[in-house]
């Protein structure tokens, strides 16, 4: 990955757009006016930040509930340490998993070290997908749980500034 030098102008562009891109025909010109740079420079910097991976992508962030993904389960697994990395990659590769991480256990209350977020239109669908993960983990898994979300309390995304 290219080493990108993030400077105050980039920062100003991120701060100006983190609430959303203006819904006007020439949004990057609107941002340019706001941060006091030429529009061409704002666009070049956005492109460069995407190439460098600082901006993951530009687009719509849906509320999953509103678009039909009404069941969301954080599936958590206690997987043998010496086997978790290859198994974690396999779990992450499943279609139904949108995020998959290894995280520290918090013993004794929290024995789980593999977190895989699973989405579905019903709890049954999420639980069926969790079963797929369970079979994949096999005897490397000692315990598991599925934490369903019942409410989005906040979803503003990242804020800097």
């Amino acid at each position, binding site marked *: 990955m290219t080493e990108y030098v993030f400077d105050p102008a980039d920062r100003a562009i991120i701060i100006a757009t983190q609430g959303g891109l203006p819904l006007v025909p020439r949004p990057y010109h609107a941002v340019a006016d706001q941060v006091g740079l030429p529009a061409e420079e704002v666009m070049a910097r956005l492109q460069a930040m995407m190439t460098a991976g600082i901006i993951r992508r*530009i*687009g719509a962030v849906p509320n999953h509930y509103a678009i039909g993904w009404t069941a969301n389960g954080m599936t958590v697994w206690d997987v043998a340490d010496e086997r978790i990395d290859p198994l974690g*990659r396999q779990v992450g590769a499943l279609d139904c998993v949108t995020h998959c991480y290894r995280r520290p256990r918090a013993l004794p209350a929290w024995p789980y070290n593999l977190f895989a977020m699973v989405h579905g239109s019903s709890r049954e669908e999420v639980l069926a997908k969790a079963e797929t993960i369970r079979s994949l983990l096999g005897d490397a898994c000692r315990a598991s749980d599925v934490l369903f*979300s019942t409410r989005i309390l906040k979803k503003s*995304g990242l804020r800097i500034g």
Partner: protein
Amino acid sequence: MRERPAVDLDAIDRRIIDTLQGGFPVSEAPYAEAAAALGIREEELLARLQGLLDTKVLTRFGPMVQIERLGGAFVLAALVVPEARYEAVTAAVNAFPEVAHNYRREHALNMWFVLATETPDGIPAAIAKIEAATGLPVHAFPKEAEYFVEMKLESRV
């Protein structure tokens, strides 16, 4: 219980949601370009995006920043919140700009949120502030390895 807005999406809304989760152009008139690809007019795309934001079908439209590439940090954290205090603790936690999202989940650890800060030291500072504001211990689950992240989901309604 579910926060599912009572919104009817039509076929064009669904295509907007499914095709514009990434790849929005960086150009002079990007909405016109995206609208042309969808076979609608620029004004219609702008009006529909505004409508989808107003009805909270979309939480935002714009660039998504990968804060770790800027030297920042993301940490998943959780609280055991007494039911009687749930609303007050929600308000206290959500008030911190470092809290990027927050979900209620069914477990003794019943509030799960993501902290995003511009520097790694911002995380312990944010945790200390949240503990002071709520009087509850924060359980932090920093990631040790990332196996997969891809948050694009097609509309199912």
